[in-house]
């Protein structure tokens, strides 16, 4: 499998995701934002970090970069794209995904291990997880408070476009287990065709037993399936 990781000034999880992909034998290329062509790849990753310092709105400025035109094209042609954290924010700002990511409801940066519950596994990204499986991942963001209008929310719900929701250790989806105030505990969403995934939690931070856990690896293994 070939992958491309797009790097913006201020990205800081680009190396982390590359390490994970390489560990799983992806042939990975780092793509600098000024490039005008994406290498041919089976997976495009928009990594986490603070592209352009997250100034103005998180992801807003990266969404205007050269390479994003290529990413949008690829997305519309059905390529698999995953945006993690700041990557999710960029995918929303460039219109590949809908909705908005507002400031966390407590107005504080939150970094901690949280739990998500797999809502559906019949898709390219989560097929190596069981439905309703509770998975530990790490979050680290200021603006992860997902918001959208009623119409879009209904569309997301009716079409299984919400693959993951925040929950507690036992899998209960509650207010107390919602770290940032996201609508209905939404932790990640798909586009209509389910080839583009945006998620706030970092699967690449759970790919190594020595540092944390390897509960993020099935996501990447799913993509290889």
């Amino acid at each position, binding site marked *: 499998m070939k992958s491309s990781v797009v790097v913006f000034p201020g990205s800081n999880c680009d190396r982390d995701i590359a390490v994970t992909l390489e560990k799983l034998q992806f042939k990975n290329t780092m793509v600098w934002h000024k490039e005008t062509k994406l290498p041919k790849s089976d997976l495009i990753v928009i990594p986490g970090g603070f592209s352009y310092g997250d100034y103005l709105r998180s992801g807003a400025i990266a969404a205007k970069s050269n390479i994003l035109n290529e990413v949008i094209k690829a997305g519309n042609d059905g390529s698999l794209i995953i945006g993690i954290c700041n990557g999710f924010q960029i995918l929303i700002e460039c219109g590949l995904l809908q909705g908005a990511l507002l400031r966390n409801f407590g107005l504080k*940066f939150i970094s901690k291990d949280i739990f998500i519950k797999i809502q559906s596994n019949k898709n390219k990204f989560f097929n190596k997880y069981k439905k309703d499986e509770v998975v530990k991942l790490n979050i680290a963001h200021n603006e992860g408070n997902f918001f959208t209008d009623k119409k879009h929310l209904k569309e997301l719900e009716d079409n299984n476009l919400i693959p993951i929701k925040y929950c507690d250790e036992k899998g209960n989806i509650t207010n107390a287990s919602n770290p940032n105030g996201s609508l209905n505990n939404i932790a990640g969403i798909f586009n209509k065709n389910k080839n583009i995934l945006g998620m706030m939690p970092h699967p690449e931070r759970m*790919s190594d037993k020595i540092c944390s856990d390897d509960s993020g690896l099935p996501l990447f293994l799913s993509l290889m399936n």
Partner: protein
Amino acid sequence: MKITKEQIQSHGLKLDEYKKIKNFLGREANLLELGIFSAMWNEHCSYKSSKIHLKKLPTKNKIVIQGPGENAGVIDIGDDDAIIFKIESHNHPSFIEPYQGAATGVGGILRDVFTMGARPIALMNSIHFGSPDNKKTQNLLNGVVSGIGGYGNSVGIPTVGGETKFNSTYNENILVNAMAIGHAKKNKIFYSKAKGINKPVVYVGSKTGRDGIHGATMASAEFDENSEEKKPTVQVGDPFTEKLLLEACLELMKKNSIISIQDMGAAGLTSSSIEMASKGKLGIELDLDKVPCREKNMTPYEMMLSESQERMLIILDDKKENEAKKIFDKWDLDFVVIGKTTDTNKLVLNFNNKKVADIPITALADEAPQYDRKWKKFKVKKNDFKIKELKKIKTDKALFKILSSPDHSNKSWITDQFDQVVMCDTIQKSGGDAAVVRVHKKEKAISISVDSSANYCVADPRTGGKQIICENWRNLISVGSKPLAVTNCLNFGNPEKPEVMGEFVECIEGMKEACEFLDYPVVSGNVSFYNETNSKSIFPTPVIGGVGIFDNLNRIIDMKTKKTGNIIIVVGKTFGHLTRSSFLKEIYSINDGPPPEINLTNEKNNGLSVLNLIKNNLVLSCHDVSSGGILVALAEMSIASMLGLKITKPKKFSDFNEYFFAEDQGRYLLEIEKNNLEKIEKMLKKDNTFYEVVAEVQNDIFEIDKTLSIKTEELYKCNNQWFNKFNAVN
């Protein structure tokens, strides 16, 4: 134009110091030159009050590659790897503007580390606030914590640990010390010493604005009531630019084009250019018209003294400009040749086709004033209290009170605001005795701990100085690592007062003694004097940042108890030392008498014995006993795992509290398997190390027979509520 007395004083210089300046110049100085001297000769840059004492610290052994004197210390961790680290204070700016003050503190220390060629791999901090009752404290705490996170998170360096303390001594003068740790290849370390004549001097990074003009002077002046109005000295940090600067510098460092490199820290362009020239015994000539400026009509004075952040000065080798410029263009950073090295040994500044300053470099650096200030020997107060005379308190009540106090409360309200795992090499985050970070893609890791105990230092600076080195060493042992070296940040009051100077001198002598005994050299550091308000000094607060090593990843341990049925032993003797303890402070508000003594022989022996047990895979979890004593340490182990403990009553103590809350030094709690006890006993006997069994791991209940019985959940709650309550919008 003649320099006036007022001008001299407003630059923080003494009149006789100005006399010296005139001698060096052979004439009157102009205002720009006066500004440059004042920046270089102030306490912050010249270490004029501290230098002769700092020299006493041991700074060398076979793993030290670079000791004090460069931007940061460098140690050898085997193979071709080096670790580069330093701690620095940003106290005064953080009191005035907590968010930006703390943020730029983190930015500054990161630059100190990547200037030397290291990729920063971890950040730590030590923050001290006034009493929680003080109405400023909440705002300062919030601002400082979000500032530290705001900067480190954005640059993408994990903040893996630190310490947070509260004491009314810091009401009007908080402490914000930040430490950065980086990794470099041993043969790719960069220094600030200039070499060669006519080499281009290049300015890179952000543009220069009117930020913090005289910031360095501010850091060396006492606070008074009006200081909250001294506004323009605050700088705004730009972590985004820092990240670009970091990547651009590391990219350039892969090529062979840098002769020397120096970040622009305190006193900006002035200190960086002079430091490079002075170390290389060369001159430097700058063309100030070329300095990239943010504002219109900036004067040479403003350019030279600006403390705008995220800037560096580089001396390049011949013909390397194009290749270097390409890299900085890629990262959208300014890159301008602003001068050259010369053989004149002078700092020469040109502006508008005129020479505007001309100063011998030695006058600014080596010949800067040094003082052997008067100091008064400290008299330790005798311990006249008797535990029997105090009103009895039940052990469980006392435990609850200590565990829920601000100093002992769980700090996750703070650490959840820090990205602790970006870079994916964090093995242990904050919450344990030391942070553990893997060396990227290698089978080895380093441990880091930051510690202070002002409460002991104020009672006896010499013992306190020794103690804090030992405590730091102990913390690194407790995770299973071998302690290697330290950096220190010495936060003290006004050195012109003999009592304060005495505290400083004796603290250093105590530290020296401990460092020498433990072979634990000091490789970098920082001194922050004048931490006082309206003539009231803060407690002497030396902060120690230590680094240790694991040569494989299999023997890293934490303080979480692992399995019911295992037993816990305490290594090191308990004598019942209670003065200056958290027990007396939190329960009785008693704060006098001497701190616990340090027996260096036992300290070292106990530590090495523990490390040996860990290396032999005989220890399942470990926690050092520090403030709060054995019972608090045991409770912390329980809270970490949510397993209970059945604790044995001490035999020799008639008052249990005296045993359970004593703060005798050099002790560790070790969880071991029962059937290894005999073997362990033999090993400890052979080392002459004292131990006794204190507890057995069980489910749910934390208990001492007939004395106390608490659900671990209760312990957890009591330990976790303070910060939320304090910060709940109230």
